[in-house]
């Protein structure tokens, strides 16, 4: 039988029959009510986010309004601001200031180092070079965080490769001069704040590069040309066009670097001085000291700081170009 004959005998219907069965019924239902499908897809993650994630955060917040009985070591479940008052004791305030300063410096240094790399990747790298860029940025993230930190401890140690290299270059005096400085110095880089800083920047740098690169990627190349065409020198183009348009990316990256530094307790424990950072304070308060309320109050500090930071960034117009 020819195809022609088949068609003339049974003309094709204008409406095709449904595929039938439960699957067919669901397909039709989802098509007719797309919001139902959306709700179904969002339900599990929203439950996770709402109950497990936000819920535990609220539980933590509540803990911070309790206090600890200093004699019995038991938690007194009465609303009080006393624990928050404890944060302002000189020792605790030092911890907060030290951590915030470190986080700010790490963020600033990451942004300065990340920008040229991200700029190159977004505007010049193509094909194989772009793949190499992503590999180069992501590769360090594939290896264990602890391994990297211990590797850095060896690099920065007095017997380490950095000291050896500087000695070969006859620049040891420079390192010694730096290490003899107060606060940033120490016996060797691996037991100084400078070492902590270097390792923080190393570990968090990818989290700055990627969002900045994504932001720069969205800046059309002809905006740079237009700026130049209108008489702006490269420096002016950077200040007036590139930087403002990359700012959302820099802010996104700085949220990572800033909050990750605020919360980290492993790097300063392995590399640096014996002075505590917020993360270490939380760790010791909820662990050995058993002071859960104070630990909770310490964790609220980064949340509040990030809140102010985002508010300030928004007021500065960091998200205007989004």
């Amino acid at each position, binding site marked *: 039988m020819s195809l022609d004959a088949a068609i003339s005998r049974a003309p094709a219907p204008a409406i095709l029959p449904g595929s039938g069965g439960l699957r067919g019924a669901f397909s039709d239902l989802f098509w007719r009510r797309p919001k139902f499908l959306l709700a179904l897809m969002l339900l599990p993650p929203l439950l996770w986010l709402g109950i497990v994630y936000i819920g535990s955060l609220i539980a933590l917040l509540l803990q911070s309004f309790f206090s600890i009985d200093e004699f019995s070591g038991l938690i007194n479940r009465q609303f009080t601001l006393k624990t928050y008052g404890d944060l302002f004791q000189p020792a605790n305030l030092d911890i907060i200031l030290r951590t915030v300063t470190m986080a700010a410096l790490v963020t600033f240094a990451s942004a300065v180092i990340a920008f040229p790399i991200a700029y190159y990747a977004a505007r010049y790298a193509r094909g194989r070079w772009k793949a190499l860029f992503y590999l180069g940025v992501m590769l360090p993230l594939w290896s264990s965080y602890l391994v990297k930190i211990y590797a850095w401890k060896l690099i920065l140690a007095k017997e380490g490769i950095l000291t050896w290299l500087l000695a070969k270059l006859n620049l040891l005096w420079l390192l010694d001069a730096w290490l003899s400085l107060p606060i940033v110095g120490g016996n060797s880089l691996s037991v100084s704040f400078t070492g902590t800083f270097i390792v923080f920047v190393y570990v968090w740098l990818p989290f700055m590069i990627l969002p900045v690169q994504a932001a720069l990627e969205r800046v*059309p190349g*002809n*905006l740079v*040309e*237009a*700026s*130049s*065409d*209108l*008489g*702006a*020198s490269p420096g*002016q183009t950077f200040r*007036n*066009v590139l930087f*403002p*348009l990359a700012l959302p990316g820099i802010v996104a990256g700085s949220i990572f670097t800033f909050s990750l530094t605020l919360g980290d307790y492993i790097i300063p424990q392995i590399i640096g001085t014996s002075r505590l950072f917020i993360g270490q304070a939380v760790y010791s308060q909820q662990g050995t000291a058993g002071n859960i309320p104070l630990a909770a109050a310490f964790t609220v500090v980064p949340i509040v700081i990030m809140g102010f930071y985002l508010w300030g960034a928004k007021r500065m*117009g960091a998200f*205007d*170009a989004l």
Partner: protein
Amino acid sequence: MTSAVSFNQVSRHFGSVRAVDAVDLEIVPGEFFAMLGPSGSGKTTCLRLIAGFEQPTAGSISIFGERAEGVPPYRRNVNTVFQDYALFPHLNVLDNVAYGLMVKGVGKAERLKAAEEALSLVRLPGYGARRPGQLSGGQRQRVALARALVNQPKVLLLDEPLGALDLKLRENMQEELKSLQKALGITFVFVTHDQGEALSMADRVAVFNDGRIMQVGTPEDIYQRPNTRFVADFVGSSNVLPPDFVQRFSGQHRWGSLRPESIRVSSAASGDGVAARLIGTNYLGATTRLALDADGLRLHAVVPAGMALPAEGEAVMLTFNRESLHLMDEPA
């Protein structure tokens, strides 16, 4: 008189691609100059060479008598209206227009006043507070124009600025650009692939193909007296006639060009002329375009609408005035 823009044997090669190949060009101060050609013909690269975004591989460029090779875009008193406008998304319209003055260090009050005036010039007064994203395509186009004009450039470059607009708006903008250019007396260099646009707006047109200029002349020159098959075909889709055919009418063995509107079509019985067959009609409103087959040679004729036409497939007789047959320079 010094030329506004002068190209002397300018080439721009990208690897093995000769985007612009040994181009000579003189643009007269105050004229509206169009660069016309298909995409990839080198016209935009020429514009970018004037703007300074590209540097010539060989040859020399001067702008108002001053050598421009190696001079960065920001030191050229030349401004560009970009194809997709390239307005700064993070600045409002007024700051966009004032940008050029801002980077030159003009005080805030003065530059905003100048920007407001430039917006009035393009008939967008009071739009300063909006963001580029809130404007329509036609409005963005005007903002881009104001942003360039506020700097009072020696040469204004326009890179297919009307390409993204719909037909009606495009026709309005053509008239407006033309009158603006007349009023301001600034040299306009306009890149387009639309021959109608080039013919209707420009004082002179350069037709580009394969990185070379095929012909430079007034729109009338280009349209009536194309010098090559390419120009005849590209500008107004002329009938390109092979040398053997041309010889029958002019006695010269050369390529010829015959405008579709110069061909008269009558029914086959009457008089002498070129015998042909009507193979298709295309209704265009004011005119009708006829596709004809004259013994294997495909021809087009344009006749006024409403004229009685033979049926498709019928034999017809084609006649034309000898003087409307233009002989081209291109060797046979």
